[in-house]
């Protein structure tokens, strides 16, 4: 399936919040294994776009398909397709009443119906991978921001997603912790994960992305490889944004 269909296909996507027309016909296609960084000014609709991709927000027109499965199609299939995405939030959203390990095993046990021992073994392996295995039995509140965000990444990976969505994963972090989270994300990228990353970290977009997408006022204004995008942006709005952010 994923050979013939793109991992993510967004066509003519519209979204309104009341009177506000937040997405105004967005088209985006992401191949399996591709890493896409989404840039754009505040309020341009970046979060809304990735929240539509995993169905957290219902769309008001257009279509979102994951590996060929339409999210507005039959409910069962759409739910299963939604589950092939993993989401990492700006504010981590770890479950504070559970340990780091329980955060990771919750969905595998209750959604994928894994046995507890198996789920724990898999989650421990993921916590090793994001290098916080020694904190597995702690509560989120006992961890630093960077550790919490890495735990949140492990939690999303525990559901074995085909696509990982990141919504400004480092924006809530103290500067000295940004690096450790980006390191984990770079590792994921190297391992071939399909990723859509909303970020203000230009260095990450430069190094890790296959493609950079620039959004403004609910539309994708420009998309290009990172070298092209940063060296020769073709749109005036892109140039204005870059000069502001790189100044």
């Amino acid at each position, binding site marked *: 399936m994923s050979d013939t269909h793109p991992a993510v296909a967004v066509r003519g996507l519209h979204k309104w919040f009341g009177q506000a027309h937040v997405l105004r016909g967005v088209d985006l296609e992401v191949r399996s294994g591709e890493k896409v960084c989404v840039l754009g000014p505040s309020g341009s609709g970046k979060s809304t776009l990735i929240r539509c991709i*995993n169905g*957290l927000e219902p769309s008001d027109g257009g279509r979102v398909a994951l590996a060929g499965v339409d999210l507005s199609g039959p409910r069962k299939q759409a*739910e299963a397709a*939604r*589950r092939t*995405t*993993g*989401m990492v*939030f700006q*504010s981590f*959203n*770890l*479950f*504070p*009443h*559970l340990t780091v390990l329980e955060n990771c095993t*919750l*969905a595998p*046990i*209750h*959604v994928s*119906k*894994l*046995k*507890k021992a198996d789920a724990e073994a898999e989650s421990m392996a993921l916590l090793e991978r994001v290098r916080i295995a020694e904190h597995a039995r702690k509560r989120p509140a006992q961890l630093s921001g960077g550790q919490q965000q890495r735990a*949140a990444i492990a*939690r*999303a990976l525990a*559901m074995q997603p085909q696509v990982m969505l990141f919504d400004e994963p480092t924006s809530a972090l103290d500067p000295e912790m940004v690096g450790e989270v980006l390191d984990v994300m770079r590792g994921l990228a190297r391992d071939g994960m399909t990723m859509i990353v909303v970020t203000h970290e230009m260095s990450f977009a430069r190094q890790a992305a296959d493609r950079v997408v620039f959004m403004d006022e609910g539309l994708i204004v420009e998309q290009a490889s990172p070298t092209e995008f940063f060296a020769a942006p073709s749109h005036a709005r892109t140039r204005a944004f870059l000069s502001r952010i790189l100044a």
Partner: protein
Amino acid sequence: MRPPRHSLGRRVRASLFATPWDAAVTLAVGAVLVFTVPGLLRWALIDAVWLGETKAVCREGGACWAFVTARWRQMLAGFYPEQELWRVGAAAALLAAATAPVAAPRPGRWLWLTPLGVTGAFAVLSGAGLSGLPDVAPEAWGGFFLNVLVGASAILLALPFGILLALGRGSRLPVVKGLCVGFIELVRSVPLITLLFMASYVLPLLVPAGTELDRLTRALVVVTLFSAAYMAEAVRGGLQAVGGGQREAARALGLGSVRTVALVVLPQALRVSIPALVNTFIGVFKDTTLLYVIGLFDVMWIARAALSDFAWQGRELEAYAFVGLVFFAACFALSRWSAALERRLDAAPLGLAAAVKEPA
């Protein structure tokens, strides 16, 4: 390195005499205690009369606890037959077991004990359906135990109902939301005593013709519904304290709405609601002293009946002091327990997970 230990004198100074104002308050309170406590102790303990058959044994200036001890069996268990009193003890044990889901570290695991314990307590007391036990009609039940029975059963039955009402109140379905809001507002706005009187007329209309609801059942239904409305509001406060990001994270992980509520939202919401919930528990328990108005022989009824007995007339102070003391002890214990529960949950949170079916 250990934290420094301060001497007793230093700690006393810090907590009682830190500022001139603190010192003044300490001295004033101390003076009041010095003048009142010895007299109170003399009345309540030293000059008190503990045993006796009539008020003739009572002494001037001392409490006459003989009034309480002479009637202890009624005060405790109403007119329950003497040779069957062990069943009251058994029912108390069953009620204690029924509290396991709120008292034990893994609530989800013990949920089944609540309906079993409560029904068991009523079965043992009435003897209905249990061969070998003589029937004891609810008219013979009473005393402080009746307050505990109705209070504990109503609290335990109302809690799940209150949680559902709170969840329903937050529902997106207008009909569900409307019904829950309507119920909560209606029940909260009518005094319990009115509801208790109304129940005699309204409840029989709601059950199939021919079934007879005795007073006790009616009281239990009313107190349960009444408590549920208050608990719903306590839980609603907790639900509001759980951020939207928690639901989103659960949904992004593929948890359905039932699991999101059971595994993510409720454990956090209930933790936040504990102080407000225990507040309603205590209120409900104390409200069981209203049961005497519909002719149930709770501890207040027994006390008033004893006071109207010529042999004990005039011992109101002892009667109400005793009832007050018993309730204080029970409610204070409840309050300490809730504080301990909060501390324990902060260390190891509510394990509702076992309530949602887990694969083997």
